[in-house]
């Protein structure tokens, strides 16, 4: 606990504090000391405030946080100043995290389905009944089909122990949407080029960039905390910002150059930029010479990609392309062409990401200050578990390495296998903290897969859409009420962070580690959980690493020594590619039958008169998970469809009017308000992702706004790595009265 303000506490409040803290400390196992009271603005009466350091889980950035409990009630959450990720400041979602704890729509007890799947009818049961039921079904699946027929979808650090249990049970099919629906293509593109991933948190040195190029990355709306903070620093410093986005994003409003690109044509732009940089010899010749492989073949492949060629494709005039290319070259190597994160757009995504990697290579930014730094992490030995059983079958998600460069499991591959039963049937899904109906493209396919299952278990905190289809729903404690695996961060500054409960769960919710351990015991896998309590597990790991667990509990974070992070500081200039160099030309790709240097193909065109549906983030929400959080929904409780002002005028629409979207396959969205704005091109419309909930238990969010996921009936699969590009859907606007 951190002691920040030491005002005097009167005897009354001290006595009250002792009572509260004694019980809370016992219950939650938190060690600490009270800090003094802050008088509220109106009542000058001192209150008892307790502060607990932990880390945030409203998204996957894992910012260090300090939660304050005032008179037994969760009061506020602030950034932990000791945390290098958040630097003492959270993003709005982290600050609004208290709404996750107090959400009246939360799941409260385990539930077992009583009606048809998807009818959202359950019976409340005890944990023992629920886990007994699940274990029984899992044993049956194992007996009939083998343990591999049980799949786990899990997103985020909370899934660690369930993964452990399922691996112990014998499955190999574990996937998260963060690969095939999010950053997969980028990591593949960069891996193919530099031999390493960009990672999460991204190894981007935005803070020190002199020139920052954002291709769709809508920092400021995408609130990945460190990046936004560094972006603001760069802007404040006067860095030259180039933003490429069909929508005038918040980041675009900070840019020196705003390029309103025709959606889906970014690869053409990147190729044209590289064409200019290469033909005008603006690249970092020494760097390319020293680290590059196959540069000449690459350079030769660029000849046709002139700015004049790119103009009709992208809508960006050649002068602007040249000016921005020269701008990038001017500041190299401190020019960072941001790799993006959610990059499943058009099906050419891994190749586009590779092109972005190559552009960075030309600028010499990989490994350099203001470019991509080399992250490091602390050495934290794993807990000594017994070995997992040897799998009898390979993974189902990527049969015969159809997507040769997929280095993580493909969610949609597991879904395909579930539907077809090929290469072998999948009969059970365990879903932890991922709302597959909002996260995966084509809801109908997900539902079709679910119908093939003998068991669908969903571990969630709210009655989400995916929970609505479950046979068994397990209510988890929120991140503020539980321990989790340690966060051993791979970052500029290595550190380890602890998540620990701030207060009790309000009802019969349990933490994932408890669920995973109990389930393992019911499955007869108790040997995989040699520890009794999670603290014992955590303490073991921390102590083995030579650190003090008590200190970690008190501070929330222990930092390790900083390693050199740039080549110039002595970070090793090593590349994990087959050639050991930056592969401008990729023999790997060539061997697998793909373009060894990126080649442009135009995006799929939509039906005439339809608008390409784009989507992204709003700063106050995470995906589809924060809309019943009363505090955050108070900031924004519905989305609106952004429509170009001229288009809206012609259609007789103004801001605030209600429409439905109708996609190319005739699917009709919820009612949604129009935002008529100059801030978007006329050929596309935009929605903030995650709204338009259809789960009835999400009372506060039900029916508010429109769901982008619902409109995404089509997707284009990236041939290199199986990512599902979703910006290939087109909608028209149906006026509502």
């Amino acid at each position, binding site marked *: 606990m951190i002691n920040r303000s030491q005002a005097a506490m009167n005897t009354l409040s001290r006595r009250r504090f002792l009572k509260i803290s004694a019980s809370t400390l016992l219950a939650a196992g938190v060690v600490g000391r009270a800090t003094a009271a802050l008088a509220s603005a109106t009542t000058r009466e001192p209150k008892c405030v307790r502060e607990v350091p932990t880390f945030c889980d409203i998204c996957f950035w894992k910012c260090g946080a300090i939660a304050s409990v005032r008179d037994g009630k969760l009061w506020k959450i602030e950034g932990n100043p000791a945390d290098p990720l958040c630097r003492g400041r959270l993003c*709005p979602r982290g600050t609004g995290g208290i709404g996750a704890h107090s959400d009246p729509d939360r799941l409260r007890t385990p539930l077992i389905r009583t009606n048809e799947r998807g009818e959202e009818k359950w019976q409340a049961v005890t944990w023992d009944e629920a886990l007994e039921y699940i274990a029984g079904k899992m044993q049956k699946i194992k007996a009939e089909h083998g343990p591999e027929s049980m799949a786990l979808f899990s997103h985020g650090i909370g899934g660690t122990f369930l993964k452990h249990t399922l691996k112990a049970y014998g499955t190999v099919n574990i996937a998260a949407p963060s690969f095939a629906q999010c950053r997969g293509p980028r990591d593949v593109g960069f891996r193919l080029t530099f031999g390493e991933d960009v990672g999460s948190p991204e190894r981007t040195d935005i803070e020190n960039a002199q020139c920052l190029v954002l291709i769709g990355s809508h920092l400021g*709306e995408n609130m990945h905390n460190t990046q936004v903070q560094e972006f*603001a620093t760069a*802007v404040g410093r006067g860095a030259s910002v180039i933003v490429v986005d069909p929508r005038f994003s918040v980041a675009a409003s900070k840019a020196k150059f705003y390029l309103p690109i025709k959606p889906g044509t970014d690869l053409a732009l990147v190729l044209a930029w590289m064409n200019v940089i290469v033909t005008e010899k603006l690249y970092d010749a020494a760097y390319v010479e020293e680290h590059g492989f196959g540069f000449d073949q690459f350079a030769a492949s660029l000849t046709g990609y002139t700015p004049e060629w790119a103009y009709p494709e992208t809508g960006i005039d050649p002068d602007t392309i040249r000016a921005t290319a020269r701008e990038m070259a001017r500041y190299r190597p401190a020019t960072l062409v941001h790799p993006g994160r959610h990059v499943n757009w058009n099906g050419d995504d891994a190749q586009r990401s590779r092109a972005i990697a190559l552009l960075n290579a030309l600028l010499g930014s990989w490994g350099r200050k203001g470019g991509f730094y080399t992250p490091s992490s602390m050495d934290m030995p794993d807990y000594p578990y017994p070995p997992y059983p040897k799998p009898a079958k390979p993974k189902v998600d990527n049969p015969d390495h159809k997507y040769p460069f997929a280095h993580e499991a493909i969610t949609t591959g597991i879904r395909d296998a579930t539907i077809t039963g090929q290469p072998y049937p999948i009969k059970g899904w365990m879903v932890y903290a991922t709302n597959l109906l909002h996260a995966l493209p084509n809801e109908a396919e997900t539902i079709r897969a679910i119908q093939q299952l003998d068991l669908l278990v969903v571990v969630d905190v709210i009655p989400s859409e995916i929970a609505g289809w479950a046979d068994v729903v397990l209510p988890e404690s929120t991140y503020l009420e539980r321990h989790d695996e340690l966060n051993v961060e791979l970052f500029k500054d290595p550190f380890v962070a602890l998540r620990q409960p701030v207060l009790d769960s309000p009802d019969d919710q349990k933490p994932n580690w408890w669920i995973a351990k109990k389930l393992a015991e019911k499955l007869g896998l108790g040997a995989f959980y040699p520890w009794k309590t999670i603290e014992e597990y955590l303490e073991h790991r921390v102590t083995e690493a030579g650190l003090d667990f008590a200190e970690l509990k008190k501070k929330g974070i222990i930092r390790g020594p900083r390693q050199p992070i740039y080549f110039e500081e002595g970070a090793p200039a090593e590349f994990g590619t087959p050639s050991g160099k930056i592969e401008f030309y990729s023999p790997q790709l060539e061997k697998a039958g793909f373009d060894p240097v990126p080649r442009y193909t135009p995006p799929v065109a939509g039906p005439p008169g339809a608008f390409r549906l784009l989507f992204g983030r709003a700063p106050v929400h995470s995906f589809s998970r924060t809309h019943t959080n009363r505090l*955050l929904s108070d*900031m924004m409780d519905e989305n609106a469809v952004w429509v170009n002002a001229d288009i809206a005028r012609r259609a007789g629409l103004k801001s605030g009017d209600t429409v439905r979207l109708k996609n190319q396959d005739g699917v009709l969205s919820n009612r949604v308000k129009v935002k008529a704005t100059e801030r978007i091109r006329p050929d596309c419309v935009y929605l903030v992702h995650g709204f338009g909930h259809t789960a009835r238990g999400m009372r506060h969010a039900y029916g508010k706004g429109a769901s982008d996921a619902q409109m995404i009936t089509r997707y284009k699969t990236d041939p290199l790595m199986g990512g599902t590009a979703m910006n290939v859907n087109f909608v028209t606007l149906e006026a509502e009265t």
Partner: protein
Amino acid sequence: MRYVMVIDTKRCVGCMDCVVACKTENNVPEGYNRDWITEEVRGKNPTLQMEIRSERCNHCDRPPCVYCCPTGASHIHEGGVVLVTHEKCIGCKACIAACPYDARFVHPEGYIDKCTFCIHRVEQGLKPACVSVCPTHCMHFGDLEDPQSEVARLLSSRAHHSLLPQTGCQPHVFYLT
């Protein structure tokens, strides 16, 4: 002493963290705002400019809300901070009608509420909640009369504006441009 807020619109991304933080710090009820974000977009696609502002009570030097308050509930506190004493407020709403910035509202408990510049924190040597959470560090708070203060330095070195100066209220939240 003259407390002011200086907000750098170049850095502000309109994330509303300041709004959320104000809500938790000050128990602002659901559905009410002491601070909020305004986006001002000018131009025609694709040549656009956008200013994003975190707005709140401007703690005016000539506050009509104070002048029209029949009970003295609205008053000017030390440092130029405009406050409302809840126990004096009758809820006549004259001050609401008087404020050109629509910065006030009727709290569900009946009295008038608005931004206090987090005076309870400031008096403890802390920054206002919104200022202290802002992830882009675009908000600054301090004493304008202290020439060494960050706010004074920012205002003397950078172009800035305040909201609706033509109302004559002399607002004391400044926006760097």
